[in-house]
């Protein structure tokens, strides 16, 4: 008979939770977590009990009821007999529209201003410094209101275009700048127009294919093909040819003064323009600083080495400095895009019907379902922000320094 002795094991005693440094911090964290859960549970319960006591029940049934109000700037079909959820969708699309437009324009403003701020030209760099400091240090709400007020006060009302002695006239008989918004010609898609569009899309791919071909040819054989004018030819010539072959199927619907307003064409409302422009110049100033920081983070040796290889300054910036600067620029750029999206909720100040204006404004008010509407709003902004963040992170991963 053999006796097996277990190896000595440190037996776990309850007191070790307090006295043993290995476990102590876990004990305290567990206690803290428990307290937090209890506190949140108590407060949530308190909230629900009080809501019930006030006779406020959470219900989303109102979303199916007819909204009863109209929205002038919209991307999809909508009238006042459609449901509150449809109105909310109009608002969602309006939010996305202004956020998208403002992100694009802010990036353009920001990159130009950021690069120019580092210019050796004293006047240019000081002008850009002036732009950055003025625009980022005044709240964006003020900018929105200023631009909107200036637009409504300075631009002529539609009736200034009327009559024989009109004080205003349309630009090229196509564009009308009024204090209610800008009217642009709208394309009219006739039969066969889809072929033209398809050809155009194919041309765009063709341009990319040609440029890739030119690049591989350059790397493999050293033969340099021109890319500028052939790209333009590939892009435009087939489309224009097809346009005439199909018998000019794409027409223009130009705005014209009818009754009280311009009719026809595309109306870009004054609130949208004010919001778009204000968000762009405001956030552009922040992006300019990000771009400047990114460029300055690229070692000067890179510029000098590129110069020693004989690259021209423009190419040094485009081919050597900016690609490396991007990995410093992108992460803060993500948060600027998020800021634009969230700041677009200031649309309410100028009556642009974004999601805050429709669901969080009129619907909330007409139905009195404040808690429900605000919860939906929070969910929407959270989803959008996290999506933008996710997309930009994918992009960031593609441009960041590859460590091999």
């Amino acid at each position, binding site marked *: 008979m053999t006796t097996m002795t277990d190896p000595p094991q440190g037996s776990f005693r309850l007191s070790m939770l307090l006295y043993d440094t290995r476990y102590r911090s876990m004990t305290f964290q567990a206690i803290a977590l428990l307290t937090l859960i209890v506190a949140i549970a108590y407060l949530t319960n308190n909230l629900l009990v009080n809501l019930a006591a006030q006779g406020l029940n959470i219900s989303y049934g109102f979303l199916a009821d007819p909204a*009863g109000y*109209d929205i002038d700037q919209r991307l999809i079909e909508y009238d006042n007999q459609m449901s509150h959820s449809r109105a909310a969708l109009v608002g969602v699309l309006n939010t996305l529209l202004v956020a998208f437009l403002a992100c694009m324009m802010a990036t353009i403003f920001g990159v130009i201003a950021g690069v120019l701020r580092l210019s050796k030209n004293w006047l240019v760099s000081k002008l850009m410094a002036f732009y950055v400091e003025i625009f980022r240090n005044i709240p964006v709400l003020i900018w929105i209101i200023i631009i909107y007020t200036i637009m409504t006060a300075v631009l002529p009302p539609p009736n200034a275009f009327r009559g024989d002695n009109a004080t205003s006239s349309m630009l090229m008989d196509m564009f009308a700048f009024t*204090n209610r918004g800008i009217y642009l010609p709208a394309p009219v898609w006739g039969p066969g127009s889809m072929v033209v569009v398809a050809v155009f899309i194919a041309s765009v791919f063709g341009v990319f294919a040609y440029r890739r071909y030119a690049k591989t040819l350059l790397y493999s054989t050293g033969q340099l093909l021109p890319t500028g004018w052939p790209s333009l030819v590939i892009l435009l010539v087939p489309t224009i040819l097809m346009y005439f072959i199909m018998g000019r199927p794409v027409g223009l619907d130009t705005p014209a003064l009818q009754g009280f*307003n311009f009719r026809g064409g595309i109306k870009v409302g*004054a609130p949208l323009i004010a919001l778009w422009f204000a968000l762009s110049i405001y956030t552009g100033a922040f992006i300019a600083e990000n771009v400047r920081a990114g460029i300055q983070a690229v070692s000067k040796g890179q510029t000098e080495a590129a110069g020693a290889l004989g690259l021209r300054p423009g190419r040094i910036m485009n081919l050597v400095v900016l690609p490396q600067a991007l990995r410093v620029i992108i992460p803060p750029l993500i948060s600027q895009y998020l800021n634009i999206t969230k700041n677009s909720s200031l649309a309410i100040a100028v009556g642009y019907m974004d999601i805050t*204006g429709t669901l969080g404004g009129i619907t909330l008010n007409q139905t009195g379902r404040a808690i429900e509407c605000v919860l939906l709003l929070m969910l929407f902004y959270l989803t959008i922000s996290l999506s933008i963040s996710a997309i930009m992170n994918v992009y960031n991963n593609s441009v960041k320094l590859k460590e091999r």
Partner: protein
Amino acid sequence: MKKSVFLGALTVAGLAAGAAAAGTLDDVKARGTLNCGVTTGLVGFAAPDANGEWKGFDVSVCRAVAAAVLGDATAVEFVPTTGKTRFTALASGEIDMLARNTTWTFSRDVDLKFTFVGVNYYDGQGFMVPKALGVSSAKELDGATVCVQTGTTTELNLADFFRANNISYDPVPIETNAEGQQQYLAGACDTYTTDASGLAATRATFENPGEHALLPEIISKEPLGPLVRHGDDEWGDVVRWTLNALITAEELGVTSANVNEMASGSTNPEVKRLLGTEGTLGEMLGLDADWAMRAISSQGNYGEIFATTIGEETPIALSRGLNAQWTNGGLIYSPPFR
């Protein structure tokens, strides 16, 4: 950090909900001031004057309630509310009563859980246009751009009116009356629509009021009145009967000038009951006997308030119309003090 903000918000929500359940009359007495929600500024109805003192038709209702409950017509904290914030402010207990030309509707009364204590102005929605526009009827407004305050019944009436007449319009949503005025004057909208009284009040502040006309169509019924939260009937009674006291005072000929001598000298039993020299009406309300007398002597009766704030002698120049006493063919009618 984020968690603590969240917890804080929950706590505030919980506390506010708790506070709202207590008796408002006791709260107001304990606080010593009345929190009254008014507009952000509509001349004649509620707007601060040159000295920063709130004046107007709705303001007088607030002051009358303060005089009745607290004995001091100036013990009112005016909380300016927009069309969108007013109901939240009232429901959350931030204000004790709302006197902000608010239309009494079914869903506000029933679904939003408010109690409308009466009507102090019978209004209807109208349109204002520049005379230069050459429009004489609202039905000619096909395709017009219309400035409308968001979150109001006006917005819904507007949609209904245009739909019923099968004509189209572009809405320009605005937040406050001042904003609407600015947009309208800049020509960013062809017409401005809100309650006819509000249009008259707004027009009165224009540089050239004569260049603007109100269209003849009144497209809705807008009974405007003060409201309180549902479920606190004692407080609702106080506000309701203060308003009724002002109306009854006009009917019985009690004015701010003669209220004292009427109280001692009148032989009319209803005047005596109203002014507290007979009966115990004040006690039933949870107030003292002089409550109505204080309200009337500080603000005047309904007719006096109307005349000094929005009447024909004022720049707003509204006639009594529907808002005359029932004895004069109007709709203003108070249940008896008995």
